[in-house]
């Protein structure tokens, strides 16, 4: 079981580094948000927006990198590559677990330098805190990969997939505490969207990193529970749907 999973993970990680142009675009976007936009906004608001945004940028980078696997799987589905994948001497569970693990690791590989940058800007955590932050990021990254893979196989058409990805991106990033505190969102969004923003795993990871690095908002058992529940739901749903969708895609 482990051997098959490792082979899938290795394959997906190798492919990830071939997307150097996509990654360069992502890095430009994340760094421009932090080193230009946040620096200017800091001079226009009453708190240090640069420090506030550094953890948020880590979460958005993680999200975007974890979603890259969806684009790949979508291409594989359209080009009939799923038949080849299903013909490999691997169990379905190994394939699904391998791909989701690789998706999670890709997010971590991409976002760890952003986290280290945030640590330089804010403060260095203790080793256990650093481990917990990486664990939280891994949970989110794996959950997002699951979601991306499911959408990629279920929607098939590239345009439909990119449209769904953009919609998800808009809702998950803008209805979260990545760019602004929840107190601000409470003044502009209706109740249901506030609840969505509160339970959004991107908010959970941004706030957990803020909690460990600047102490605000404080890390509580509730923040971990929210992250575990929602990332867990994404992971389980993603794994189940991918398993069903990849078999249906070849019929």
């Amino acid at each position, binding site marked *: 079981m482990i051997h098959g999973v490792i082979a899938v993970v290795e394959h997906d990680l190798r492919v990830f580094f071939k997307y150097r*142009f996509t990654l*360069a*675009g992502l890095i*430009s*976007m994340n*760094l*421009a*948000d932090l080193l*230009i*936009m946040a*620096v*200017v*906004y800091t*001079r*226009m*608001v*009453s*708190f240090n*927006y640069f420090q506030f945004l550094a953890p948020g940028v880590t979460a958005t980078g993680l999200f975007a990198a974890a979603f890259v696997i969806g684009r790949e799987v979508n291409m594989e589905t359209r080009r009939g590559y799923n038949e080849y994948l299903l013909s490999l001497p691997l169990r379905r569970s190994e394939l699904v677990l391998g791909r989701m693990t690789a998706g999670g690791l890709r997010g971590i590989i991409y976002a760890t330098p952003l986290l280290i940058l945030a640590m330089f800007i804010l403060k260095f955590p203790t080793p256990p805190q650093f481990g917990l932050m990486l664990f939280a990021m891994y949970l989110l990254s794996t959950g997002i990969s699951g979601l991306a893979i499911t959408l990629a196989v279920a929607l098939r058409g590239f*345009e*439909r997939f*990119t*449209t769904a990805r*953009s*919609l998800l991106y*808009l809702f998950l990033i*803008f*209805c979260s505490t990545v*760019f*602004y505190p929840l107190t*601000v*969102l409470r*003044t*502009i*969004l209706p109740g249901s969207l506030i609840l969505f923003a509160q339970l959004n795993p991107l908010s959970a990871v941004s706030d957990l990193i803020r909690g460990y690095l600047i102490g605000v908002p404080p890390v509580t058992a509730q923040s971990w529970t929210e992250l575990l529940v929602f990332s867990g739901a994404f992971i389980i749903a993603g794994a189940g749907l991918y398993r069903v969708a990849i078999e249906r895609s070849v019929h």
Partner: protein
Amino acid sequence: MTKILLVIERDLRSLMQQKSILLMRWFYAIVQIGIFGLAISRIITVMQNYYTYYAMGVIVMTMYSVAIFTGYEIYDEADLGYTEYLLSIPLTRRELVLGRSLAGGIRSLVFMAPIIAGFMFLIGIVDPLRVGMALVALFGFTFGVSGLSITLAVGLKSGDKFDIIMGALDAFIVRLSSALYPQAFMPKPIAILSTFNPLTYAADLFRWSLNFNIHFLANPVTSLIVLVIFLTTFNVAGVAIYERNLEGASWR
């Protein structure tokens, strides 16, 4: 002239075929104005009407990204072997580039027209002269951006390089301009860089046309001159590079 109009008509038709991408950009602009803009304006303490300022910036940014589309289409055409067909039709290269650049500007305007109209209605701008000036400013800018996009696409002849340069340009051009925040609040190095950015002048000229507080904007005469230089430079360069580079199958 008729031939240029034919190119424009064809490019307008091809844009309408990209419905889902266009709808997403529309939706993106609305969410940026409706959520990000509202939220960020609640925490801005140095400007009273930042929300209006921001919304005007998002309109110009979105038009920029629609105008850039022309370059991607050139790659699609090269990919599909369509470039040879374009070269065989009875049009000069100059007519083709000018038609495409003009179409890029018109497409951006047509695409954003409902959002611009809705926004002007909301902020109470109905003076035809001001509306006309705002539209001319936007068209001039997007005409230049299409020229830039064509120049880069044909100059590079590499989809990967074009993609990365456009991605980086998109990230830095927007943030190193007054599209999101006034130059008055930028640290000096960022403010200096933003003065070399045509997006700064397009956004500020658009705001000036719509009667925004001039205290936060670049001088409108300077903006107009910069935009004219920008659109002339990149369309002339586009024509020159297109004429020299389009032939030959060296697309990557």
